[in-house]
């Protein structure tokens, strides 16, 4: 027996929940379901700290937000998408306010905004420094009032079902019981987030394995701009725990081992005692992470048990401001590093944070496979181009979550019921999972070892700086790992809550995504935003003012093509910060 719904959403984070509400609001008769591998309030949206950008204050303008986003993205953003994004952002943020999000406030009761990296003025809404947490819980709790939204908590999707050129549902494992089940739908929206766990040092939670990216890729939908991986300049060295950019927007300094604000040496402006927009510590994340590597090469970083690091100093902000506006930062430092940032400097290093790339979608969240939509970090619309600005991603998941929810609901209302023929595919999938993993005999490879090798390969090849020879070697290594994956063996053969089975399926997703990243990076012979090639150090608009599209080839390796960037009103120009 198959479960059947009108709109099926995979992933219960910010984008997925916003999509679910949008679909429910569009047509209360629609039967909507959210499948999530964790309880929705565990989703990684919960970890976002600093804030969400939307124009609301006098003196700001939609054009200014669009320009900051486009220049921040080194002109790789699709400008029609950015224009839609900045236009719809304020209403989405207000909607969340109406749904109870506890935004920080001005004394007069209006929503407060703070500055953020790469933004020309204050436009980042925040709920202290737990913005993602509050947004996620407000969204999740709001979904509870819609009886038309059904949930499958802790169900893990293994395959997208395609028939007659149309996505008609998924196959999923109910983790608690191990039951494998087809969940059919007229439209499916992937909202599974990013894939930071492809790398060893990341702010991302353990659940960020590129599930949705790989599912779409295997179903024939291309992945766009996968070479653009954002390193956040300030993660804690061992754990990769994120220390929000808000520490710098509130006035924090980055210091090398000599106590020197080294960003002034990297064309990011002059050090001032107070934060200056689009300057120094408020420069964009790609430039700050690159400056760290240069500083390391000059021998001016510090060295600890987990490698090189610099200092983030917020002591001069004082305890009162820190406790009011950055309480989570203090809590994280105290609990996880045993450091009190009121009195001590915080050790930080760049860590993988966000994927600008993702499943290629149009401005409505539609992928190139009919009936399949995507929104949030899993998708690439693209508004983020070659480098995302801090505080645009939380807003993105609202704007494009809502858009995808509405578009998928409209699509679903015009479709026939899913065809029963896809059930045969679901049975094949059940057989595959049994034969390859649960009932497999032999096999010598271990999940943890393969995963560690993949992560090391990615850090060494597709990190902050890249070069052809290393990327080529990485592509070969990943192929090898894919082969070795066939020989993987599970210790756990039980059906009940088998987390080893989930881990092995996540690893298979990550290997596909890792290959897409490395091949896309290899083919882009220029430097743009977060993609820096030491062998091609300049931006090349004649050849590469284009999105890469990775399609899964016959042998499993990606094939790379290009798609032109949509330019509306902001022709490519030099990115200028600090002057």
């Amino acid at each position, binding site marked *: 027996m198959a479960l059947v719904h009108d709109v099926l959403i995979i992933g219960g984070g910010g984008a997925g929940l916003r999509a679910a509400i949008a679909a429910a609001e569009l047509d209360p008769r629609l039967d909507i379901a959210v499948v999530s591998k*964790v*309880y929705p*309030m*565990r*989703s*990684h949206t*919960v*970890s976002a700290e600093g804030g969400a950008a939307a124009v609301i204050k006098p003196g700001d303008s939609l054009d200014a937000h669009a320009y900051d986003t486009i220049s921040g993205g080194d002109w790789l953003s699709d400008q029609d998408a950015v224009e839609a994004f900045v236009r719809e952002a304020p*209403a989405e943020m*207000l*909607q969340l*306010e*109406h*749904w*109870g999000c*506890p*935004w*920080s*406030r*001005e*004394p*007069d*009761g*209006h*929503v407060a905004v703070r500055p953020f990296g790469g933004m020309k003025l204050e436009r980042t809404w925040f709920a202290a420094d*737990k913005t993602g*947490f*509050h947004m996620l*819980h407000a969204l999740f*709790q*709001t979904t*509870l*009032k819609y009886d038309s939204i059904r949930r499958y*908590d802790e169900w893990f999707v293994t395959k997208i079902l395609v028939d007659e050129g149309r996505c008609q549902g998924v196959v999923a494992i109910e983790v*608690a019981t191990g039951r494998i089940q087809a969940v059919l739908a007229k439209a499916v929206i992937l909202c599974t987030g990013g894939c930071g766990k492809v790398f060893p040092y990341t702010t991302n*939670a*353990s*659940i960020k394995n590129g599930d949705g990216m790989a599912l779409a890729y295997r179903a024939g939908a291309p992945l766009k701009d996968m070479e653009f991986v954002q390193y956040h300049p300030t993660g804690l060295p*061992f*754990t990769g*725990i*994120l220390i929000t950019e808000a520490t710098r927007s509130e006035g924090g300094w980055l210091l090398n081992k000599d106590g020197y604000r080294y960003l002034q040496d990297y064309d990011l402006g002059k050090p001032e005692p107070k934060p200056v927009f689009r300057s120094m510590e408020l420069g964009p994340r790609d430039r700050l992470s690159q400056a760290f590597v240069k500083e390391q090469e000059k021998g001016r970083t510090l060295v600890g048990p987990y490698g090189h690091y610099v200092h983030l100093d917020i002591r001069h902000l004082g305890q009162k401001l820190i406790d009011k506006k950055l309480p*989570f930062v203090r*809590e*994280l430092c105290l*609990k*996880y590093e045993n450091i009190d940032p009121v009195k001590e400097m915080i050790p930080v290093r760049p860590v993988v944070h966000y994927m600008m790339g993702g499943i290629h979608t149009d401005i409505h969240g539609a992928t190139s496979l009919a009936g399949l939509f995507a929104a949030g970090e899993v998708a690439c619309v693209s508004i983020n181009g070659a480098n995302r600005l801090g505080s645009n991603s939380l807003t993105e998941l609202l704007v494009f979550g809502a858009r995808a929810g509405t578009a998928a609901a409209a699509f679903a209302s015009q479709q026939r019921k899913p065809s029963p023929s896809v059930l045969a595919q679901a049975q094949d999938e059940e057989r595959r999972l049994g034969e390859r993993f649960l009932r497999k005999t032999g096999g010598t490879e*271990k*999940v*943890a070892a393969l995963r560690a090798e993949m992560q090391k390969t990615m850090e060494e090849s597709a990190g902050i700086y890249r070069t052809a020879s290393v990327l080529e070697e990485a592509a070969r290594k990943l192929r090898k790992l894919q082969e070795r994956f066939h020989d993987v063996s*599970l*210790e*756990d053969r*039980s*059906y*009940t*809550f*088998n*987390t*080893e089975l989930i881990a092995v399926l996540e690893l298979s997703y990550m290997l596909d995504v890792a290959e897409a990243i490395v091949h896309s990076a290899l083919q882009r012979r220029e430097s743009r935003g977060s993609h820096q090639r030491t062998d091609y150090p300049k931006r090349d608009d004649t050849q590469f003012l284009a999105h890469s599209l990775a399609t899964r080839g016959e042998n499993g390796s990606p094939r790379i093509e290009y798609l032109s960037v949509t330019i509306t009103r902001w022709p490519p120009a030099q990115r200028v910060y600090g002057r």
Partner: protein
Amino acid sequence: MPPSVTLAVTRYRPEQESEPTLQTYEVPFRKDWVVLDALNYIKDNLDGSLSFRWSCRMGVCGSCGMMVNGSPKLTCAAFLSDYLPGPIRVEPLNYFPIIRDLVVDMTDFMHKLKKVKPWIIRAQEKPLADGEYLQTPDQLEMYKQFSMCINCMLCYSACPVYGLEQSFIGPAAIALAQRYNLDSRDEAARERLEILSEHDGMWQCTFVGECSKVCPKNVDPAGAIQQLKLVGAVDWFRFLLPWGTR
């Protein structure tokens, strides 16, 4: 510093075992490791079949709550060094049915959460075009702490009332109801009070206060329950009087 530490971990695979048992593992001791790091070391190096939930490893997703030496803890925030010399006992959260190993069944809470209507309810919605509902920092402060609940279930595991009577709606759900009751944008406090006043509601709480002590986010569910009992009692009293406002 010892070179290693022993963990005694609950194992329960319902397909193979009829009862939970404790299994010991020796893991390397590292100063900056938390209990969750040790569990991941076991899973990756010693025994791939050990099951537990985790995700953010930064104390905000609420997945990794377990009993550590008998107390409910987020294992991502429980340093091995605080439990030396060991062995460290790691067990599933108290009072919940065990699905497998360290994984408990929390569907009961999900139903209870929905029951208290944790969303903004108003007689009249303000159109988005009219902007935000004004809320001063003081008004925000009224409910803020109750909005910090991460649904980690440590409070249920510490609550003696829940231990005896699983129909008790419990600390987190009550705190979240109060989070909306105290929000200046909400108008449904009375509706929620009626839900909470039912037989399995807050009247069962004996104000032991364990819930507030174990909360990793400094939420004070016991305080919420006290506030509600006071309002509830006044309300009930008003109901009896002829000039009551019901």
